[in-house]
């Protein structure tokens, strides 16, 4: 049980007073980011990343991952109280959370949402504790072909599992790969796709893309809708919390199912948003109160929240053990690792034990701290939403500009951020998914390197990706994921034809 010993050592790191303080700060910032429109997990972490340049890496990742947990918790507050999802993964929470609030059961809905989030996260963290070291030690034997196969599987899952049309997912993803290719080619040392612009020598930084696509793009969308916030008061007290807790164990089947859906969708980079919808949909179909869903059924809050938080947390498993982030926010954290001088991937578990286990231990503590913070501070966070958007919008835009500038101390990046923002607005409106675009920018270089090295070994034959059982299995899984929606369609057609 070496993992347990490692985990305890991790706790001793995470429980240092400075790290606990950092944890609280991260959670508070995260909830605020989750509550505010236009600031989400991914770009919130990206903007605050420069602040951690001078911190020790372990404290830095604790702070940034806690911002992420906070944002996951925060999304539920606005969904339930204002019917405005602060984050895409809390859209499904509005379906039953807001009706509950209208019936005067806001406290109950919030307590259920927060507790479910915590349960989902806890399940995912336990899974990470047990599975991540195994995956990492397994992945140590990977050659370039296997590495490429993992990337292939990750990106194919996007195409098959996202709710956007597959060819739009492919287009968005390929734009990301193309942007990643710009600049110095890491193998030949040759310049490419710069068209003579010196600003493009170093290529496109995905942090700028994240801040622009998610931050500025979101503000523009909110501006278009011209929203004003109207919502009920948040009253949550110990009695309501305890009453809700008494009811929750009755829904353990829903919770467990949502945990599993969340973990699965988080590891394959489909992410928290589809996980929450899928979990809600299945709960609605299976539950004996299914007809009540949408009218304020507590189970309709538990299912999406558990799955979203489990998925958001599980997204860190492939990030830590394989260096393949499962969500845009995990991608930003991965970018952080590179900036702090750590090499993400399986070697992390052998070379940076303190860092990895400190992070995993902080995931247990951070989610517990998060639960306490949101349960006690809901009214404060709800009050933030009453600040008018015409004050919040310019402040967020300025914050985005500061974040974009401080990545490379370059004003060109700030302009690029605005371009990405407008592009993000247009793509989002036309139903192109942004997450695969961002992940492709992050992983493009590495995927290409693995691809070219494999081809080099095989003298250009694509057969190298099917040369042994391991690599063929991953590639075939990838192909199944790629054609998943087509397979599903064919299957339902067969069944209707048979019936």
């Amino acid at each position, binding site marked *: 049980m070496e993992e347990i010993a490692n985990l305890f050592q991790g706790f001793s790191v995470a429980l240092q007073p400075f790290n606990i303080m950092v944890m609280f700060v991260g959670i508070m910032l995260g909830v605020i980011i989750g509550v505010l429109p236009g600031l989400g997990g991914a770009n919130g972490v990206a903007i605050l990343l420069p602040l951690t340049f001078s911190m020790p890496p372990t404290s830095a990742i604790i702070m940034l991952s806690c911002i992420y947990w906070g944002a996951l918790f925060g999304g539920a507050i606005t969904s339930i109280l204002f019917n405005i999802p602060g984050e895409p993964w809390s859209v499904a929470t509005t379906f039953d959370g807001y009706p509950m609030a209208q019936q005067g059961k806001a406290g109950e809905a919030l307590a259920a949402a927060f507790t479910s989030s915590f349960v989902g996260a806890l399940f995912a963290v336990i899974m990470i504790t047990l599975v991540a070291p195994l995956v990492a030690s397994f992945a140590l034997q990977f050659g370039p072909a296997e590495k490429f196969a993992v990337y292939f599987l990750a990106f194919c899952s996007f195409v098959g599992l996202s709710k956007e049309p597959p060819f739009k997912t492919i*287009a968005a993803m390929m*734009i990301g790969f193309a942007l990643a290719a710009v600049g110095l080619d890491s193998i030949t040392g040759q310049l*490419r796709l710069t068209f003579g612009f010196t600003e493009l020598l170093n290529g496109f930084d995905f942090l700028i893309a994240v801040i622009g696509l998610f931050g*500025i793009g979101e503000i523009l969308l909110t501006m278009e809708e011209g929203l004003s916030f109207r919502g009920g008061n948040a009253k949550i007290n110990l009695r309501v919390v305890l009453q809700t807790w008494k009811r929750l164990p009755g829904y353990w089947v829903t919770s467990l199912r949502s945990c599993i859906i969340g973990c699965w969708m988080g590891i394959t980079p489909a992410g928290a948003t589809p996980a929450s919808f899928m979990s809600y949909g299945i709960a609605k179909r299976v539950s004996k109160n299914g007809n009540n869903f949408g009218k304020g059924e507590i189970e309709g809050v538990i299912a999406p929240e558990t799955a979203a938080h489990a998925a958001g947390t599980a997204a860190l498993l492939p990030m830590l053990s394989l260096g393949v982030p499962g969500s845009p926010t995990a991608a930003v954290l991965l970018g952080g690792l590179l900036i702090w001088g750590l090499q993400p991937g399986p070697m992390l578990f052998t070379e940076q034990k303190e860092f990895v286990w400190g992070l995993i231990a902080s995931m247990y503590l951070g989610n517990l701290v998060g639960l306490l913070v949101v349960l006690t501070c809901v009214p404060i966070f709800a009050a933030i939403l009453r600040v008018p958007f015409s004050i919040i919008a*310019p402040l967020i835009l300025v914050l985005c500009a500061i974040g974009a500038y*401080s990545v490379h101390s370059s004003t060109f990046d700030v302009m690029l951020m605005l371009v990405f923002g407008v592009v993000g607005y247009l793509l989002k*409106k036309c139903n192109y998914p942004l997450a695969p675009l961002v992940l492709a920018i992050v992983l493009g270089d590495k995927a290409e390197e693995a691809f070219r090295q494999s081809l080099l070994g095989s003298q250009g034959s694509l057969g190298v990706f099917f040369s042994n059982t391991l690599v063929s299995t991953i590639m075939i899984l990838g192909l199944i994921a790629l054609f998943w929606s087509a397979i599903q369609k064919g299957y339902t057609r067969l069944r209707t034809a048979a019936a």
Partner: protein
Amino acid sequence: MATNSSHNAGPTHKAVEAGIAVLIALFGALVIIGSLKAGITWGAEGPRAGFVPFYIGIFIVAASAVNLWNGLRDENDGLFAEWGQLRRVMSVVVPTAIYVGSMPFIGLYVASIIFIGWFMRWLGKYSWLTVIAVAFGMPIVTYFIFERWFLVPLPKGPIEEWLGL
């Protein structure tokens, strides 16, 4: 969301969708041209720099062709957005562009004060007192958090230099 009503005109969803698909295809063509320049064949050290981007470019063009075809076949004749909504979006994009463009010359702090002030006064119609408090407060707080505590330097212009910051 866009609604389909007669008195609120705006660009149709179909037209914008088609336009975006064409723009993405053009981007793909640009990637192909750039890759051809870098060399897409095999060199002494294996595939040359343009090898992978070349196929990425082809994927982009092909996927856009499908998206364009699907978009044009789509029965949905709703609006992309009303002109009024787009005007609101532009009322953020244009000042932000000016803000971003002026940053290298007047520095981040002065640009931010003007930008926040403009936004709150013209779009939010706040009293000058509130506007000044927020417009000056935010950059000052930023200065202390970024430059003093976390030692992250931000762009400065002549006024900051004159103040000796």
